[in-house]
Each structure stands twice: as structure tokens, then as C-alpha cells.
């Protein structure tokens, strides 16, 4: 009964404390809360990429919900009678009519529509960059294969979100996209026509597809995505973060900031910055001006019709693939369109999803890893990644080859051939180049560890030879060679990185510190060369005449 008396030690003394205590009595939240607040997050900017994806998803949910208040996902024919004069009296679907209404007759509607669209582009982009970070640093290795695969599934779902989303306004551009989706469905061998009739409820275009895409876009896919995001984060918390190698960082710890207050403040700051960026783009940079395209009409199309950026690579592969229908006995056909769309996309995402297993098989490395790798230290993986990336970017650029041909006055056919040849030639070249660059960087790291940092100080030896003085990074052996081993962490390569220079005087427009004060402070800290600056004499490095390497400078 002691806990009930007001004088008990540790009893809450404020109203807020009492309320918290009452809540904890009922819910027993404090163990969980303390664990959460104490959780350590590694402090590196690249860990924020996934968060950007999460925050743009939240923005998408908020702005998307707003849009549903006004959007009418129906293909019923109506005659436009809104504010936008050039389209008045034109027959169009109710979907396009309401999308125009959102843009012109809802206060702030255009802003919200554009905010939603920009957030969607940022969403997919941040997922892709996040994925690249995970890939190139080897964060997908055991025990994180599950989370990698979940991530790939979420990327595919994000693309489906995009496709179903930008098809909704039923303007000329999105209708053309829909027509291509219909053709891709039809191209699937055996079940293609059945799949098309199931999705479109008949021949193209029917009266159902906008409504069906709408429910997929606002309910089905977001619900699955939300569940997968929850799972992704749960696994992340369970497995704890990876971290880059460095002082005090091991496979069995995480070094960084605790959630509260540092990490929480930074993450909240990032939420606002991402939201602000989307809002700025949504207000200031026009995107998808649907009123310029006009309503969908199967007999019309505009040139330079490109999808949103994340579908561009499939558009490119479709443009480049040669006209190879495969005619099978019995008058069956596998349409050429099947390969660059269904097969290419399917193969790319399948290989991506099972890459952790492929690498495990090839390297035989089945151990658990919590320390990240620098891309240069795994040249084969990095080169494979560069190869895949160059293939992707090449296809993506080919998705706009008509625009390139037009702007640079190049023959369109030449662009197609450049694309076809490049698709085969560029990835291996990217592989080789990346591999060589990785080896070069590795070598340079070792060189600096062995010989020290180039100081830029040129000395003339008594025999007339000029040498550059090198600053060793640690203890040296009899020959003046550094004895530090490479530990997978960045090697300092400039004197500034090892505190060889004074720290900069603080202040943006004018100094806010006393330079002499800083100087004294630096000397007090014994910071690098700055501390010894005063009493350093310039001497020759005493390099042996027989061509030995430069030794540690005397200071």
C-alpha cells in the first residue's frame, strides 16, 4: 500500500506525472517506452532514404484521401460545363470531368492534385535510391534477405500504384497508357485474352476499367502496402540497423544516437522537409496538365507521349525490342510485345528479389552481417549493380528517344538502333569500368595506409632529388611503411581529414569567434599539425638515396 501514499519515494509530484503513472498502471507502457526511446540509430545520411519513402507515402495517403472527396471514378459520358473554357461543351467521361473540376473548380484542388503527383514521383524515386543504397553496401545479406524481398515487392506495388493512379483522370495521355496496358495484357500467351476480359470486363475499353483501377489504387494496393511497410519496419526494429565500419563499431553493436531526443528530432525535421518539398513542387512546378491533353479518344494521340518516369524503362524496352512474333504450330502466336514488357519486367524484378540468394550461392558466404561494405571492397557486386543500373538507365532514356531525336535533330531510326546496340554493349562496358574503378580505389586506400597522406609539401633532398612528404596514418615500420591494416572504413586521404588543418572559424557572413581564441583552443586540444605548427622546423625528410620511400616527417 506504500505506493498509494503521497510521500512514497519516486511518486509523481505533478499532474502530468500522475496521469502518466495512472496510464502506466493500466497499460504497463513504461518498459516498452523506455526500450523505444533508448533504441540506438546509426547516424548516417543514407539511412534516411527509406524514411523519405515512408514520409512521401504518408503525404500520398493524406493528399489522396482529399482527392477522393471530389473525384468520380466513372466512365459515364458527360458534357463538360466547368470553368475551363476551351473544353466547354466537349463530351468526356465523368472521371475526366471531375479531374478537371478538381483542377479548376475546387479551391486549392489543383495544388492538392499536383502535390499528390509529385509525392508519388518522390515516393518511387526514394524507394529506388534506398534500394540502391542497400544493394551497394551489402545490407541485404543475411539476416536481412526477408526485408530485401519485402522491399522489392513494395517497389512493384509502388509501380502498380503509379500506373493505376495516373490512368484515373482518363485524359488523352492516360488513355493511351491504358491502351498499351490492354495490349500488354493481350500479349500474354495462352491466358492473355482471358486476363484482358477479366480486367477490362470485355474488349478495350469498356465501361469498368476506371472504376476497377480506382478501387485498386485507393484501397487494395495501399492496404497491402501499408501492411508490408508495417512488417518491413517491424523486422527492421527486430533485427536492428546495419552500420558502416568504423571506430568501436562491431558486428554486435549499433553506434549512433538514441531515438529520443536526437534521432526523433531529426526524423521529424525530415518529415517536414519532405512535406515542404512536395508542397513547393506541387504549387510551383506544373505536372500533368490534364486540361491540355483533352479527353481520351481512341483515334487520337499526342506525340512525345511518355509515362511517369518509373515506367519509362518499360516504354524504352518496348521501343527497342525487334519485331519478333513467334508463330507456333496450330496458328498460335507469342506476340513480340510480350518479351519487352512482361518478360523483361518479370525477369528484372525476379532477379532483384532473389539476388541475396544468388550472391549467397556464388560467394558461399552464409554468415550474418551487420557491418556494411564499401562498394569498392566488393567489386563484383558493385560492377553487377552498375551493369544492371546502366541497363535500366539505358532503357529509360530510350523511352524518350523520340524527344531526344527531336531536340537534337537526330534521325529517330538512328536513335532506335543506338538504343538496340547500346542495350547490349553498354552494360558489359559499365561492368568492366566499375570493376576497374573499384580495384583502383582499393589500391589507393592501401597505398595511403602504407605510404601516408600526400601533404603537398615538396622537399629537396641533399642529392638534388625532389620528393613529396607523406604523413603516415599510424605507426610505421623500419622502412617507413604504415602498419595499419585496412578495416573496411574510409581511409583519410587529405590532411584536413586527420585534423591536419585548423578547424574553420565559425560564422557564415562574418566570424562569430575570435580567431586567436580558436587558435589557443586548438593547441590546447593538441589537434594535429595545427598544434605543432608553431615550433615546426622545415627539414628534409631524410629519404634514403637508394630510392627508398619517404619516411615520416620529423614532426
Amino acid at each position, binding site marked *: 500500500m506504500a505506493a498509494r501514499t503521497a510521500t512514497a519515494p519516486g511518486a509523481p509530484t505533478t499532474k502530468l506525472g500522475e496521469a502518466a503513472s495512472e496510464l502506466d498502471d493500466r497499460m504497463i507502457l513504461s518498459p516498452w517506452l523506455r526500450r523505444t526511446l533508448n533504441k540506438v540509430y546509426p547516424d548516417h545520411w543514407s539511412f534516411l532514404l527509406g524514411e523519405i519513402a515512408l514520409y512521401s507515402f504518408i503525404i500520398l495517403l493524406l493528399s489522396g484521401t482529399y482527392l477522393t472527396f471530389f473525384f468520380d471514378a466513372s466512365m459515364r459520358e458527360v458534357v463538360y460545363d466547368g470553368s475551363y473554357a476551351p473544353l466547354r461543351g466537349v463530351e468526356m467521361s465523368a472521371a475526366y470531368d471531375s479531374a478537371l473540376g478538381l483542377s479548376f473548380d475546387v479551391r486549392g484542388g489543383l495544388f492538392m492534385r499536383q502535390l499528390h503527383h509529385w509525392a508519388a514521383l518522390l515516393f518511387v524515386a526514394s524507394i529506388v535510391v534506398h534500394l540502391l543504397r542497400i544493394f551497394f553496401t551489402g545490407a541485404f545479406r543475411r539476416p536481412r534477405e526477408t526485408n530485401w524481398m519485402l522491399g522489392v515487392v513494395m517497389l512493384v506495388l509502388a509501380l502498380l500504384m503509379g500506373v493505376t493512379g495516373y490512368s484515373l483522370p482518363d485524359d488523352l495521355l492516360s488513355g493511351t497508357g491504358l491502351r498499351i496496358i490492354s495490349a500488354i495484357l493481350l500479349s500474354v500467351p495462352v491466358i492473355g485474352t482471358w486476363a484482358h476480359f477479366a480486367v477490362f*470486363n470485355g474488349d478495350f475499353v469498356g465501361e469498368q476499367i476506371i472504376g476497377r483501377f480506382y478501387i485498386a489504387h485507393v484501397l487494395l494496393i495501399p492496404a497491402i502496402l501499408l501492411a508490408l511497410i508495417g512488417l518491413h519496419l517491424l523486422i527492421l526494429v527486430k533485427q536492428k540497423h546495419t552500420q558502416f565500419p568504423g571506430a568501436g563499431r562491431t*558486428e*554486435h553493436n549499433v553506434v549512433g544516437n538514441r531515438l529520443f531526443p536526437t534521432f526523433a528530432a531529426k526524423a*521529424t*525535421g525530415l518529415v517536414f522537409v519532405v*512535406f515542404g518539398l512536395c508542397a513547393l513542387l506541387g504549387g510551383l512546378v506544373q505536372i500533368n496538365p490534364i486540361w491540355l491533353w483533352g479527353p481520351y479518344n481512341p483515334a487520337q494521340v499526342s506525340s512525345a507521349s511518355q509515362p511517369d518516369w518509373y515506367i519509362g524503362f518499360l516504354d524504352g524496352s518496348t521501343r527497342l525490342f525487334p*519485331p519478333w512474333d513467334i508463330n507456333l504450330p496450330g496458328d498460335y502466336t507469342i506476340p513480340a510485345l510480350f518479351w519487352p514488357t512482361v518478360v523483361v519486367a518479370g525477369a528484372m524484378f525476379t532477379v532483384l528479389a532473389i539476388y541475396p540468394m544468388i550472391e549467397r550461392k556464388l560467394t558461399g558466404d552464409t554468415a550474418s552481417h551487420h557491418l556494411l561494405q564499401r562498394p569498392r571492397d566488393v567489386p563484383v557486386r558493385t560492377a553487377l549493380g552498375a551493369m544492371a543500373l546502366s541497363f535500366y538507365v539505358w532503357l529509360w532514356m530510350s523511352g524518350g528517344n523520340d524527344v531526344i531525336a527531336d531536340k537534337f535533330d537526330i534521325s529517330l531510326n538512328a536513335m532506335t538502333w543506338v538504343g538496340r546496340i547500346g542495350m547490349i554493349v553498354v552494360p558489359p562496358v559499365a561492368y568492366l569500368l566499375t570493376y576497374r574503378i573499384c580495384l583502383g580505389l582499393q589500391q589507393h586506400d592501401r597505398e595511403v595506409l602504407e605510404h601516408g597522406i600526400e601533404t603537398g609539401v615538396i622537399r629537396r633532398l641533399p642529392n638534388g632529388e625532389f620528393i613529396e612528404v607523406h604523413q603516415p596514418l599510424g605507426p610505421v615500420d623500419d622502412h617507413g611503411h604504415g602498419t595499419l591494416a585496412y578495416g573496411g572504413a574510409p581511409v583519410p586521404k587529405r590532411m584536413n581529414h586527420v585534423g591536419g588543418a585548423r578547424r574553420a572559424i565559425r560564422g557564415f557572413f562574418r566570424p562569430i569567434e575570435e580567431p586567436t581564441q580558436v587558435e589557443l583552443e586548438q593547441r590546447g586540444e593538441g589537434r594535429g599539425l595545427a598544434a605543432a605548427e608553431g615550433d615546426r622546423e622545415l627539414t628534409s625528410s631524410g629519404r634514403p638515396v637508394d630510392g627508398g620511400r619517404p619516411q615520416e616527417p620529423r614532426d
Partner: protein
Amino acid sequence: MNARDTRPGSTGGADVPGPLYGGPDDDYTPEQLAAMSREELDRLGAHYDGVEILHVDPGPAPGSAMEKRAIRQIGLVFTLAGVFAFLFVVVYVGSGWFLPDWHWEITESGWSALFTPLLGLCMGLAMALVGVGLVLFTKKLLPHETAVQDKHDGSHFDRVTAGATLVGGFHNSGLARRKLITRSLGFMAGGLGLMLIMPLGGLIKNPNKGNPLGTTEWAKGVRLVRNDGTPIRPGDQQPGSLETVFPAVPGGNRQADAATMLIRLRPEQVQSLTPRRGQADFAYGEYVAYSKICTHAGCPVSLYEQETSRILCPCHQSQFDVTQGAKPVFGPATRPLPQLPLEVDGEGFFVAASDYIEAVGPTYWNRERI
């Protein structure tokens, strides 16, 4: 304490904890905890969560010039964020009230053209400045601490004991022995699964019934009309020109597969005209008509370059030669654009001699069979 309180379960908290109860509450009495400073308690709790604070770089000294400056900066940033947030409200609410109307007219370049950009600018700056303020706050005022948390591998003990409970439960159920139950369960699960997905069958429609993919609205005697519904006579078009035509049926100009290009060839094109086999009589004089729906992915092919006799599809750059039966000459398309057989009716207007003799639009699996 009255009689009611002596009944079991009515005294709340008076119970003696079970023998398995333990943990920090046994190690630290409330008096001990009360004697510790807040920082000590923080460290102690962190220790229980496997976290050690290695190093704390305290923020600027209270009252120092650095601190004052940082506070001024951060205060300014948050204030500005508030200003922009209120500006957003003013622009949003005030337009059409004490500010000009926000409805945009196509010719206008005043306030209504600025409305959306101003909304974006205000909200964007407000939000971004809050973020900037928070980051500045973290960087300039909060102590920078470096913490390290242990990472535990799975525990062998947990694995073995959990496994024993799980396997024991299954073992006690006797499902391994009671084969009839397992088999009937499997049968039931299969049936239930099928039953639950069955309603999706409502989505399935037979694409081969009535050949909807292979037919269009065109038929013998159906006139070729323009988008506005006017019929076309030979001679209406200039040589070398192209016109998009539709079947003269209700809603013909909205049909997905019916759009057709009527092309009047130039004399030299007529000379080099090599129709596809069996389609020599599909043209009418120097007029030919091809489906406008690309045989690759179904986009409307619409860019006609009459000097080279080529039609280009803007989606994937397939090119078709109109003098060779619209056969694909470049790009990813594999099949010629289907040709519409042309005739002239009694009143001298163009009509179709029949529907297309093959399926228009993209290729599919059993296209050749129906």
C-alpha cells in the same frame, strides 16, 4: 480494512508476486531510485536496454554568445514558418473575399494564375522551415551524444524451449497418428480455399465468344464518315492527304477499334502501290484505307509523312509503308495495319465493302485462329 477487502482479488496490489517474478524492481528499491539523479536514472535504464552512452558533447554553454545566436536563429526560423502558414490561410480564405477571385480564366495572368503557386510556396516554405528549425535545433542546441547498443543473436535456450512447447502441443494433438483427421482437414482446407475464391469467377468472360476482338463496327455498305459525321466522296481529299474516318453507326467515332485512315495517294505512290496478297481490290482508285490502331500496342498511328509514304506510331515508333499494304518497315510492330476494303455507294459516298478481314489492333495468342 473492511470485510469486502478481504475477498480474494479485491485488494489490488496486495498479492505476493509469484516465484518467477524478478528483474530490476528487486534490485532497486524505490528509495534507492529516488536518491539517484535524473541522469543516473537515464543511464541505468539505458543500461537495462543494452545501451551505453559513450560520449556526450554538451551543447553550447548556457548564456554563451553561441547559444544566444542559435536561439535567435531557430526562433526566427520557427517564426517564419508560422508566418508562411498564416499566409497560406490568408491566400486560401481571402481569395474571392478581400483578394481577387482565384478561379482561373484561360487568358488571365493575374491573381488567379498566382493562386496555386502561392499556396505551394506558403505551405512548402512553412513545412520546410519547420524541418530546418528542428534540424538546426538538434545540431546547435541539443547535446551530441554517441551511444552504443548491443545486438543480441538469437538465444539457443529460447529456441529449444519454444520448440518444445510448439512440438509438444502438436504431439499431444495426436494429428500425426490420427490420419483421418489430417486428411479430412486437408480436404476441407482445399475445398474452403476454392470456395472462397470462387466468387472471383464473376470477373471471367469468354473472349472467344462471338469474336469480339476480331470484329469492328465496319460492315458491307457502312459509310465512311468524318469525326463530325459527314460522309466523304472520292475527290474530297487532296492527293497525299490523310483523313481519319469512322463507321457511320451511332457512337462510331468513340469505338476503340474502328478508327480508320483514308489516304489519297499521290500518282507516283499509286504506281509503286503493291497491295498485300489477296487484297488487290481493297483500294478504290488512288484511295486506300488502313486501320488506325497500331498492330503493336494499340496506339493510334497518326503521323503520316507523305514524301516517304510512311505512317509513324508516336508511342513506340513503328513505321508502316502505305504503298506496300501498310507493312511495317521499322520499329517493333510485326504485322501490317489491316486494310479496309473500299467501295462507293449509289450516292457516290465511300462505304466499306466488308469488315476488316483480320483482327485490328495488337497481336494476341490465338489471333490467327479466329
